[in-house]
């Protein structure tokens, strides 16, 4: 029973990290990128590749995973966001990020293979340590750290404040001389790095598996929508709720209805509180 | 609900103390905002403003930026719902009814920044206005019942006529994204007219127009007025307003500071102080 709790919590935190990634990108561009989950996938796959295949120490592997994530984050901004935002048709970014997500997933499938591959053990630990196993606690701890780090970043640092200014009102920020384009690029690189980090931290849980991306994109979004768009606290809570729900659901009812439960949660929340628990869907048309 | 009733243009109706039957007649057909207030999360944008828009009358709405002109217009057209107060038409409470409902009743509007469908032609943009009083339903259209084609043809002709009347005949087949600024404004008015409006609310229609074009706008507005349509004119271009309006309401920081004829307004010290300047 305890293991259900912990494994649910761990996977929930992975979802939460995907939700955080959504938030970081959204803050500066008002775009919900389909690639959010794939960033974590890249972190896991390349982490495994650096450490297992290239035999690098895991520290370097971690940096490598983050770097690849950040690179892809940057690529997302350059290819899928920048030009599309200038066009100002709000549906286009969905298409472009969807396209990019498909490409990266299929690309990894072709290069890395469609079978899950092992992810290295990071710390010396007995495998029979059950609920204390690092494969649970790494993603949990890492996601919490990420959330706290983000909050500090937003509150304390100059760039963080610029991010906030942009998410409040991009035009006003630009008018006040904030280099909005550069900030946006930075936010995507940051999001990419965080995604890579999360994927690396959860690698032992998920294995290095190409199809992880789409799952995370969807479940991360559910976590986000439940917790409330733009709120990092909401992301944590939404992720936890979703993780525990699907864990216990599949514990009691078997795995057949996992997705159904997850989406059920989404639907209920959206019907009861469309803005999510801590979010605000600002829609000002006229 | 489709036939717009057209009353003879009575001058100086708005004197509140006149015979009860004419009051009833007014009530029946006017669009009224009664003691309206609107807050945006705590911040008051309008407080206790009343305005009565009569058929066949051009009603000017002026005031400095942020005085709540557009807010009032959005309240009348239904994009906002008032915090307190009511919006009446023919004794009918509209305060909470949707934008679409008001379109059905015959309240048309234009936008500060014209909102057209860029890829569609001028004719198509205009025809869209006829939506709320079209007869053909989804299925009838899908299965191409004969009356659908008939109605389509009819709307097409109406739109064409109105476009020529508005002086856009030459651009009828042109996609909207190739139109000049004035053309866009006139097209938006035409779209409004296709709605068979009783009232049309114009949000700064003269903005960005040349003197010459403003002249045309003025004559168009007069024509609409003479056709019995009530016009609310939100405008910064004050001498234009004073030239063509029958009544003028002046707002300042969400409150009404003057309602009266153009001349009364023009020489009102308060209006001069807060808006017109010496």
């Amino acid at each position, binding site marked *: 029973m305890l293991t259900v709790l912990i494994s649910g919590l761990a996977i929930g935190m992975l979802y939460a990290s995907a939700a955080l990634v959504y938030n970081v990108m959204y803050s500066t561009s008002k775009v919900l990128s389909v690639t959010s989950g794939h960033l974590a996938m890249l972190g896991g796959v390349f982490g495994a590749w650096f450490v297992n295949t290239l035999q690098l120490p895991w520290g370097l592997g971690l940096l490598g995973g983050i770097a690849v994530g950040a690179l892809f984050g940057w690529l997302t901004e350059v290819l899928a966001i920048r*030009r*599309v935002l200038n066009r100002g048709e709000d549906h286009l970014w969905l298409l472009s990020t969807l396209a990019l997500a498909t490409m990266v997933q299929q690309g990894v499938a072709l290069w890395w293979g469609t079978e899950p591959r092992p992810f290295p053990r990071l710390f010396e630990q007995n495998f029979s340590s059950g609920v204390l196993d690092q494969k649970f606690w790494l993603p949990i701890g890492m996601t919490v750290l990420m959330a706290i780090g983000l909050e500090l970043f937003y509150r304390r640092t100059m760039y963080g404040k610029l991010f906030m200014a942009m998410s409040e009102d991009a035009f006003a920020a630009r008018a006040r001389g904030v280099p909005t384009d550069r900030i946006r690029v930075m936010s995507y690189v940051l999001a990419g790095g965080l995604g890579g980090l999360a994927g690396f931290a959860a690698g032992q849980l998920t294995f290095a598996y190409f199809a992880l991306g789409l799952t995370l994109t969807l479940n991360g979004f559910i976590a986000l929508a439940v917790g409330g768009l733009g709120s990092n606290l909401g992301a944590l809570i939404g992720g936890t709720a979703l993780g525990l729900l699907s864990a216990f659901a599949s514990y009691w009812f078997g795995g057949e209805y996992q997705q159904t439960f997850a989406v059920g949660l989404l639907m209920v929340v959206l019907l009861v509180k469309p803005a999510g628990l801590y979010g605000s869907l600002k829609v000002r048309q006229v | 609900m489709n036939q717009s009733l057209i009353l003879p243009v009575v001058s100086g109706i708005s004197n509140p103390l006149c015979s009860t039957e004419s009051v009833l007649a007014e009530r029946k057909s006017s669009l009224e905002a009664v003691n309206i207030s609107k807050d945006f999360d705590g911040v008051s944008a309008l407080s206790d403003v009343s305005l009565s828009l009569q058929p066949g009358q051009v009603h000017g709405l002026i005031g400095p930026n942020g005085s709540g002109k557009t807010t009032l217009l959005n309240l009348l057209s239904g994009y906002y719902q008032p915090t307190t107060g009511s919006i009446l038409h023919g004794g009918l409470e509209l305060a909470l009814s949707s934008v679409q409902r008001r379109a*059905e009743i015959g309240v048309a509007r234009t936008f500060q920044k014209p*909102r057209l469908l860029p890829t569609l032609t001028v004719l198509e943009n205009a025809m869209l206005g006829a939506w709320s009083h079209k007869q053909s339903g989804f299925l009838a259209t899908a299965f191409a019942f004969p009356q659908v084609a008939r109605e389509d043809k009819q709307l097409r002709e109406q739109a064409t006529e109105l476009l020529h009347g508005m002086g856009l005949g030459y651009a009828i087949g042109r996609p909207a994204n190739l139109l000049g600024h004035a053309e866009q404004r006139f097209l938006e008015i035409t779209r409004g007219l296709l*709605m068979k409006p009783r009232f049309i609310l114009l949000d700064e229609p003269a903005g960005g127009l040349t003197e010459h074009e403003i002249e045309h706008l003025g004559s168009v507005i007069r024509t609409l007025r003479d056709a019995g349509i009530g016009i609310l004119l939100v405008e910064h271009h004050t001498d234009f307003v004073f030239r063509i309006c029958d009544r003028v309401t002046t707002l300042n920081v969400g409150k009404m500071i003057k309602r009266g004829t153009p001349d009364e307004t023009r020489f009102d010290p308060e209006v001069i102080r807060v808006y017109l300047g010496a």
Partner: protein
Amino acid sequence: MNNLSFLSDRKSLALALGLLMMVTVPWWAGNQYQLHMAALICVYWILISGLNLVIGYTGQLSIGHVGLLSIGAYAFAILAGKMGWHPALALVVAGALGGACGLALGLPSLRLPGFYFAMTTMAFALIVNELVLAEVDLTGGGIGLPGPAFPAPLDSPVGFYYLAATLALLVTWLSWNIVRRIWGLGLMAIRDNPVAAQAVGVPLFRVKLMVFVFSGITAGVAGAMFASLQSYITPDTFIFELSLFFFVCIVIGGRGSIVGPFIGTVVLTMMPELVAPLAKLGHFFYGLLLLLVVLVVPEGLGRVFELLHERFWPRPVHNDAITPDLKRLARAIKDQA
């Protein structure tokens, strides 16, 4: 591409040609394989032309229609196969069921903003697959079900092709009727400028829902035809990538066009068969195509032809000043009333 202006001679000629091609396929298709592909294209098109109203015209990006396809397919396989109904009846019911599920999906999701809507539809597709796998007794679970054939003469490849082609034409005709009338304008208004749409009285949600239900019906019918064409359906047939495929067909074909998406469907269906290397790249290729189109010609390939057209036959733009004809205006307003 502008569907409202009446067909010019060139257009009607193209239309006649297209019809001729469709009717004569069985003669010039060299063999049953090509006939199968033609039928497959028609079946896909039944779904896509309905979906086109949702995506291309109303601008609601549904990436979950494979779920509705699956529902239609299984409904047909169960009713006409297991329960031995007459296939024609099963086909109708499959369509109705598709419509009902479209309604059930649209009611909660169509009020949501774009990305929320897209994700919800995607989740819907996943759920459908999950339930299909879970309800073994009904759907055969992972083993799947045989897709029954239609009674003679529709059981032959040629017969089936003509059935599919007829349905495809019917659906095309229906959606064309919608888009060339004021309804089409309403849909495009919802897509391009919801505020303006409201201002003229378009009830956004209701209209979206109608169109979505329509697309659900076509998806259900397509599913039934698909089941029969495939002769056997399993859950691994209805993968998310198939949704993506439909989506890409429409987007590269061009929003607000019927011809564009049709060409898109034909080309994308044939391409992997003709160009083997692409089959290897699989969905990577669709992704690439989608990205290129969005970046280069977001209006879709149809737009390219328009641009060329304007390049070679530029429409004369003489900018005369606006001079209202007030008498005519007054008359026009009176006549309206």
